[in-house]
């Protein structure tokens, strides 16, 4: 009997352990939903002064870096992509279990959803991240039709079919953290420029559009929750190319907000507000609904000033327990520097920017380039990057880390140099049999085949290939304009 009992216990122990492993590997590691919540749980208790909630209109537009650097505000954005207001309500509840912020900021774009249930992927993004609790169950029940509750509550049924898409980050979550969400405090910086026209003037209206019953219920629930807890609530609507109907929803939300003391609604979608922000729709957006690095600075700058003026929020800069905010600001600056490097077309500017970041660069210059008129000039510039071209003959190559040379060689002798750049990436530089030098990252050759200067840039902070640039040698010159390799 004792033996059988031991067998049964052993069996269920192995089952539980293996199910745990299965869960870790197969669960969704969604960076614009689930992972935002996972990262939030790592924040020290009662450390966040401003909690932001909402959809990507919050987490892609409000820069935690700007709030920190310009105002010393310790802000965390607990959001989910395309998040409807009912999920936002449960996120607010969840946040208040561990944090006592001085103010709650909720972007209400979620009230513009006029359906009761969103599509499958959105439900997952906005429910699975929460820790097991009755609130999580209620969140699922609010998000999905009754017939689907077991699927979303058990979670396995929805992600077991991920066997077709498993990747490194599923087995090694640090890959995901390192690449994306290490100390971003929920913010996702979008770069790039998406020029567009300002929304038509008709948006400057007071006309209301009735919220759906479900939407109004949860909007009021958020207002009541903040009221109950005695925490000021700032509802906002970030600027974007909105529809007239959406403005109607915001007007309805503004009216409802007035019914509650301590709650304010700030709608940034009006011509006077655009002017006050100094927003340029030609340059400040990364896509039709999200601001870019320029736009977030303007928008968050205004928001930070407003928060400082209207609420009692301490300046945490210099406080050693908030060092993670410094790291976050550095990450953000690094991401902007990366974008600028990628956008840089001019050789001089490119080499200059390369000196400033946390990069591993491979420079390869071909033998034919030595015949060009500006070879000497380029050699001098490369020397500043750690590459002594004069010391090589034929096709030469140099690997440098932040301007410090690690390795240099030419194709006159056979050689192979490699370095493990992170846990799963290997950079290999080697002379090839019929002359020339190959630059290989993770079993892929990157170097351009033509004559000229080729540069591969690996980002040591985010552990990823950042750029593959080529300055061709043609018509007796090494061109100073970058082309894609």
């Amino acid at each position: 009997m004792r033996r059988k009992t031991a067998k049964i216990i052993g069996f269920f122990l192995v089952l539980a352990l293996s199910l745990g492993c299965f869960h870790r590997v197969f669960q969704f590691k969604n960076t614009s939903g689930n992972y935002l919540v996972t990262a939030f749980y790592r924040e020290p208790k009662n450390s966040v002064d401003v909690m932001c909630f909402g959809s990507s209109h919050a987490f892609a537009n409000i820069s935690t870096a700007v709030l920190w650097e310009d105002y010393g505000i310790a802000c965390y954005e607990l959001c989910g992509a395309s998040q409807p207001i009912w999920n936002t309500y449960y996120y607010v509840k969840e946040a208040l279990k561990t944090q006592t912020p001085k103010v709650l900021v909720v972007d209400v774009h979620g009230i513009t959803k006029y359906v009761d249930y969103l599509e499958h992927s959105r439900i997952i993004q906005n429910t699975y991240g929460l820790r097991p609790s009755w609130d999580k169950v209620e969140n699922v029940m609010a998000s999905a039709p009754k017939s689907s509750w077991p699927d979303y509550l058990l979670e396995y049924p929805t992600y077991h079919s991920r066997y077709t898409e498993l990747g490194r980050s599923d087995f090694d979550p640090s890959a995901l953290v390192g690449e994306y969400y290490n100390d971003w405090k929920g913010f996702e910086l979008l770069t790039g420029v998406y020029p567009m026209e300002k929304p038509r003037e008709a948006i400057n209206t007071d006309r209301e559009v009735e919220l759906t019953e479900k939407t109004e219920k949860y909007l009021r629930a958020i207002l009541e929750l903040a009221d109950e807890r005695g925490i000021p609530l700032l509802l906002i609507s970030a600027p974007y190319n909105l529809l007239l109907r959406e403005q109607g929803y915001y007007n309805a939300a503004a009216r409802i907000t007035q019914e509650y003391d301590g709650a304010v609604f700030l709608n940034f979608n009006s011509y006077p507000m655009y002017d006050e922000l100094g927003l340029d729709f030609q340059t400040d957006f990364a896509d039709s609904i999200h601001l870019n690095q320029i736009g977030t600075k303007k928008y968050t700058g205004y928001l930070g000033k407003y928060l400082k003026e209207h609420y009692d929020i301490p300046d945490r800069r210099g406080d050693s327990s908030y060092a993670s905010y410094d790291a976050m600001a550095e990450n953000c600056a690094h991401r902007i520097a990366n974008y600028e490097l990628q956008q840089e077309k001019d050789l001089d500017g490119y080499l200059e920017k390369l000196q400033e970041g946390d990069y591993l660069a491979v420079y390869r210059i071909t033998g034919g380039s030595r015949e060009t008129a500006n070879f000497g000039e380029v050699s001098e510039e490369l020397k500043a990057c750690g590459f002594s071209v004069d010391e090589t003959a034929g096709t030469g190559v140099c690997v440098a880390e932040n301007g410090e040379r690690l390795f240099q060689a030419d194709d006159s002798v056979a050689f192979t140099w490699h370095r493990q750049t992170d846990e799963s990436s290997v950079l290999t530089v080697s002379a090839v049999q019929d002359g020339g030098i190959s630059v290989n990252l993770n079993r892929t050759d990157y170097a351009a085949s033509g004559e000229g200067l080729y540069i591969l840039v690996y980002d040591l902070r985010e552990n990823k290939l950042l750029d593959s640039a080529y300055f061709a040698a043609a018509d007796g010159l090494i061109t100073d304009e970058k082309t894609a390799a």
Partner: protein
Amino acid sequence: MVFNSYHFLIFFPIVIAVYFVIPRKLRYLWLLVASYYFYMSWNPRYAVLIALSTVITFLSGLLLPRARGTAAKKLVVAGSFLTNLGILAFFKYFDFLLSNLNLLLTSVGISAIQKPFDIILPVGISFYTFQALSYTVDVYRGDIQPEKNFFRYALFVSFFPQLVAGPIERSKNLLSQVDRVEEFQLWDYERITRGAVLMLFGLFQKMVIADRISAVVDQVYNSYWMYGSIELLLATVCFSAQIYCDFGSYSLIAIGAARVMGFDLMENFNVPYAARSIREFWARWHISLSSWLKDYLYIPLGGNRCSRWKNYRNIMVTFLVSGLWHGANWTFIVWGALHGLYQIAGKILGPAKEKFNRRFAVRTGTFSYRLGQRIVTFALVNFAWIFFRADTIRGALGVVRRIFTSWDPWVLFDQSLYMLGLDQTEVHILLAALLLLFLADLVRCKKGITLDVFLEGECLWFRWACIFLLFYFILIFGIYGPAFEAKQFIYFQF
């Protein structure tokens, strides 16, 4: 409530937990309540029909010993048969009969009869009707004593593991167990684990193989005119695997679930595709139905103890009834007729084949000869499956025509086969699962024991490895979750 549903996942442990702890005397009542709940989860109104069938056959059992003379006894049996088969015919065949009658009427210029009402086919009606009727016949023959306790008898008819898709149990086996349920020693580690292993293997067959392979079958058969010989042949072979795994899995789960509760249900499948003749195939396929038809139809008709032609008639009638039992459609009748013809042809050609083998000294004991027999049997069974799977006779004939006229061997090489509803990854998963099924069936063939018995005799690490392999195969590669609605077991419609 299908076996691979959340509903059953909650229902079964609750039933078991209560069953194991309540006083012994209440066991059968609890199982009766659970069985009716199980059946009513499809449609509460269905319970009336099963209750009616139960009452009629129960009363027939009570009346038979009291009936004086053979004529009176036969009258009781006829009454039980007519009412039960009448209910079955009405719910299952009314639409079929009406549409055929209308076809006849319109062909002679008479206007068609409008359907006065809609009939919903109650789940599993063919199964429990046959099970209940077997009781009437068994009492009539004196094989068993009539059951005096109505509730025990009601449990025999409605016992939930095998209620909607078999095995079709006999009163001699199941009713006698119901009568002894108080004596069951429930806490039997070996018995419970063996039952659980069978349930797991059944779920594996259903969720990993049957529901995956159905994608190929459905895609090709739903637009058969777009496909050539190879694809149609492949889809037909896939269907043979699908129906085996689908129906076989239900029986396995039913047998396993019953075993966990201390009941032994009869075997329903015994590696049917290893059969070397159609006759053997029917001794291995849907054993509970084929033996029912043999005991209660074929033998009463005279079996083979009669003239050759009468024997052929008996075979044909039995298989036509079998076909009709499977569904109200000419496709099933043709399917049954084909199997009847196969058997008759086997009997006619048997002596000639033996003569041929003797004349040319064919080595019939060799592996290759037996393999050839299996291939021919499998091919014949597959040919009949075409009619079983097609929606109409026209469709089935269309498939057959295209198999013989649209020769397309290039699809074996140009990746077309990965576009039949399953991509490369899914095909690899399917092949791996089929390999596991093949190994389990091989053990069955070679050792003559089922997977649960085989594993019981193996080392702990191997047993656990197999169980975890099956479990994770189901958990990862099973077809379930959003974008998938629990596919009904194919045999539920019968």
